[in-house]
């Protein structure tokens, strides 16, 4: 036998066999235990997460009417990879789209995508059932429910804001969002986005190699967004929007005892539903670009103007509190100082307010400076301005009032710095330089909601709440900063006197706002006529009513409309009457306002 001679070769063969076994065991150890790559890959290929979209929270008005809600809506989605020949004519009929427009859309999707994309955002409701029954004829097409934001009262567009599908920039900044999600872009929709959006649910499925879902392995239910209870009175809001038709300007109405904003009309306005659904971007472009009146601009919260004569109450109270005048101080109406209209002799602060006497208030501001200690007029004026600023800002002017709103203007009340910058070279400025501040003109900028808040302060006799638009979030309360009183630096006992003066403005003989009278309601007001560089004066009015236990404070701005008493006062009065009594006694007054077109021809 030659067996023995090669017997030792069995060892070589055993070594080969065993080394294969060992190599495989090492490789297996690596794949299954050391390296997580394949474990991760297996999850990638075998698990699918289906996202469940949460329903967006609803916004109610203060009486439980729906301001923002969700509407059932179906999208038509297309998976370009799965598309086959189909009956284009029938589909076009059912979704109300011209044939070539549909073809263009499909070709566009086909060029860039293989996976599922939205083709039509809103399928016509009335054809939905018919479309559902013929969907099998259109491979690659799919109907999917995706609710749509809707604003049933069609009011308060500026307050509510709008939602839009997120784009790449938003996703980059806020990783929570994913393609197809909607996000609040402005207004309450934006400010309360985190509350409204709710939280996504997720169903985790195991899938097979062909993408069919097999077994659900985990489920996470979606949390509906919190509902918001707004402070807006949609009836009052709607009425305000009607009154402000064909006028440029705004109305802000606040409940003084709570700081709740009852209405904020910015005119011209638009139907918030225009910015929801399929035609949104077209409408947005129209409102944004092709309208010189800038309807998207929120005049109530963002426009900055001089307050005008409505500031005179602040000026009077400040001077009185600082001891520069007393309530019965008489000051000669010196028209050399500043222009004034003809009015009877001013017998004190009340008359000065009633007749809106400009020289009177010039003098009060001068006195604030002259009573300061200092070696010369410059030092005194500087000190006077500084202390004046402290008092004025305590009225909520030119400061942040913490609105629950994504963007608003703070305005500005000048400080010595302001004039140091203007008179950089000489640094020589005194009370004469800033005297116009006394009548709410000059380097002073405020926003209408601050003026409405000023009306609240006087109505409350010396304090205010931060104005806000939401009073309940889901089942929880709002931020407690909105329930805290903010007092001015002027003692509360001086305000009653001012309210009586303001009542005289409306009801007294020779008062500047007789057009604001309401039979049976004690209404306190003050007109303002704001000079401005662009055209006619702005017509301004603030008021609150009733004088005792006031329920509503209002500021009205109508741009380029002239005297405050002529236009702004009746608007404020109509809204007040509507809110307090739900009726209008003087229909002639109402008709006059409704019919007025105060938009300057040049715009």
């Amino acid at each position, binding site marked *: 036998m030659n067996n023995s001679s*090669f017997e030792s070769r069995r060892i070589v063969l055993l070594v080969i066999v065993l080394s294969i076994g060992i190599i495989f065991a090492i490789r297996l150890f690596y794949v299954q235990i050391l390296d997580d790559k394949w474990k991760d890959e297996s999850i990638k290929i075998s698990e699918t997460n289906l996202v469940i979209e949460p329903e967006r929270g609803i916004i109610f008005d203060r009486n439980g009417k729906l301001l923002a809600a969700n509407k059932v809506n179906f999208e038509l989605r297309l998976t370009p990879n799965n598309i086959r020949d189909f009956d284009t004519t029938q589909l076009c009929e059912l979704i109300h789209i011209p044939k070539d427009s549909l073809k263009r859309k499909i070709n566009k999707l086909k060029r860039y995508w293989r996976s599922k994309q939205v083709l039509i955002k809103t399928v016509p409701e009335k054809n939905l059932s018919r479309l559902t029954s013929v969907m099998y004829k259109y491979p690659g097409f799919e109907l999917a429910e995706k609710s749509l934001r809707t604003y049933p009262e069609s009011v308060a567009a500026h307050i509510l804001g709008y939602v839009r599908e997120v784009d790449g920039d938003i996703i980059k900044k806020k990783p929570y969002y994913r393609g197809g999600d909607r996000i609040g872009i402005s207004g309450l929709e934006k400010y309360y986005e985190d509350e409204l959006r709710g939280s996504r649910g997720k169903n985790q499925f195991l899938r097979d190699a062909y993408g069919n879902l097999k077994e659900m392995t985990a489920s996470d239910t979606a949390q509906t967004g919190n509902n918001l209870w707004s402070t807006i009175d949609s009836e009052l809001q709607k009425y305000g929007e009607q009154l402000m038709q064909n006028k440029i300007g705004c109305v802000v109405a606040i409940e003084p005892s709570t700081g709740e904003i009852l209405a904020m009309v910015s005119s011209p306005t638009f139907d918030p539903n225009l910015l929801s659904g399929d035609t949104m971007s077209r409408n947005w472009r129209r409102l944004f670009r092709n309208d010189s009146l800038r309807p998207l601009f929120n005049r109530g919260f963002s426009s900055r103007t001089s307050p005008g004569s409505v500031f005179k109450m602040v000026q009077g109270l400040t001077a009185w509190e600082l001891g520069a005048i007393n309530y019965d101080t008489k000051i000669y109406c010196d028209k050399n100082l500043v222009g004034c209209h003809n009015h009877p002799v001013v017998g004190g602060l009340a008359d000065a307010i009633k007749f809106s006497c400009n020289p009177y208030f010039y003098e009060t501001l001068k006195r604030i400076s002259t009573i300061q200690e200092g070696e010369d007029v410059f030092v005194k004026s500087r000190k006077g301005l500084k202390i004046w600023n402290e008092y004025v800002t305590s009225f909520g002017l030119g400061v942040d009032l913490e609105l629950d709103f994504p963007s608003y203007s703070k305005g500005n009340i000048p400080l010595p710095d302001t004039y140091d910058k203007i008179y950089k070279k000489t640094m020589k400025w005194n009370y004469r330089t800033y005297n116009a501040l006394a009548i709410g003109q000059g380097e002073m900028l405020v926003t209408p909601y601050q003026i409405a808040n000023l009306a609240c302060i006087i109505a409350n006799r010396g304090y205010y709440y931060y104005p806000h638009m939401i009073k309940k979030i889901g089942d929880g309360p709002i931020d407690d900063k909105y329930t805290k009183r903010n007092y001015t630096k002027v003692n509360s006992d001086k305000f009653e006197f001012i309210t009586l003066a303001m009542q005289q403005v409306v009801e007294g003989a020779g008062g500047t706002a007789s057009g604001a009278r309401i039979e049976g309601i004690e209404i306190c007001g003050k007109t303002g006529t704001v000079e401005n560089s662009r055209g006619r004066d702005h017509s301004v009015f603030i008021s609150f009513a009733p004088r005792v236990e006031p329920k509503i404070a209002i500021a009205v701005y109508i741009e380029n409309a002239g005297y405050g008493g002529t236009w702004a006062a009746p608007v404020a009065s109509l809204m007040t009457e509507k809110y307090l009594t739900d009726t209008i006694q003087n229909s002639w007054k109402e008709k006059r306002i409704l019919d007025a077109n105060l938009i300057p021809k040049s715009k």
Partner: protein
Amino acid sequence: MTNWLKNIDLQLFAIYVVLVLLGISTIYSTSFSEDYPSIFSLNKSYGKQIMWFGISLAIGVIILLLEIEFIRKYIEVFYGFTILLLILVLLFGTVRGGARAWFGIGGFGIQPAEFAKISVSLFIAKYLSNVNLGLHKIESKIWAGLILLVPIFLILQQPDLGTVLVFLGFILVLYREGMIGNILLFGILLLAVSVVSLALKDSTNIFFGLEIHSHYVFGFIVIVIAFLVALGVNVTTYKRYRRAKHLRIVAVTLIGLVLIPLMKIGLEKIPENHYQRVRVEIILGLKEDPRGVGYNSHQALSAIGSGEFLGKGYKNATLANDTYNQVPEQSTDFIFCTVAEEWGFLGSFVLFSLYMILIIKIISMAERQRSAFGRIFSYSIASIFFIHFTINIGMVLGLAPIIGIPLPFFSYGGSSLLSFSIMIFILLKIDSDRLASFR
């Protein structure tokens, strides 16, 4: 009556039965369906596999009842018959999985190549054990070569690369019988490694600032290991006068080292879509699948990797079964994925160990045979199992090209189970007769 059971090696029989039962339970786990809850349902693969196991046992009993001499007498006829079948299948066979390798009979298919493995094993054993044969004569080498090359040629026409590789595995038998030298075997192994290295996925690693493709790294590591093993075996096993010259081992290693980059460069020299390159790439499994290069391997490795240490439990696979279908051919060529996913590293290691024990057991049985016929046949069987195991597991572990070849006793398939069973039973019969075989 019990005579035919005398001297049967119960260890081998036990390993065989355990492997088949594990295989059936794994097939049941992959393709279990609520519609056919019974494991004996003939509508499902597990029911069919059980039936084939029954048939295998019945044929096994018949083999054990036969006389060895009777089997030996008809070896040439059997060989000739299988060669005829291999020719007929090329003419009348049906195509499955790209190869014309099947005779369809009713719902079942028969693969002649499976049975050719048995007849070739028997015939080569009979031929080489001829006492009068001078094994070193060139003439006998040619005849031995022809016995292998005829079926190899026919199976290449199907084409069924896996089975061809199984026949090439007979090189190990020829080596054991002294017809092939140490250096030649070493060279062949290096060649195999360098071909395998072509199939590896291309990825680039940085070593000392040099970008080196992963298949080079793999090739170099394997060759260095092989070199050290060869050197070790040479020094420890052989008597001083019989040792091969170290220089020659070094030389062959160096050739291997050069061969790997040459293979790769050579393949890349062929234009991208030239049919020869495509053919090579298809054979290596680089181009074969329609869902992108490396899909099969990717899916298989994902399933294996998800098993981790202890696995997901029996019937709990979420990738490698008929419900999820994440792994292609999961009850046949890729059945190991199910084991790895359900039983984890632990279970897979036990399975590897069972195959190692099976092969080593057969080698040890071969060495105790007194007849050269018995020894050569046993070695043939061992090499067949070894090549099947190596290519199948290497494929699913991503170490070898995707070549369709079943895992013995595990993969679903009647022909393969039957032919592997027949091999085991002939082996048992020859082994039980070893004391009487000096006639």
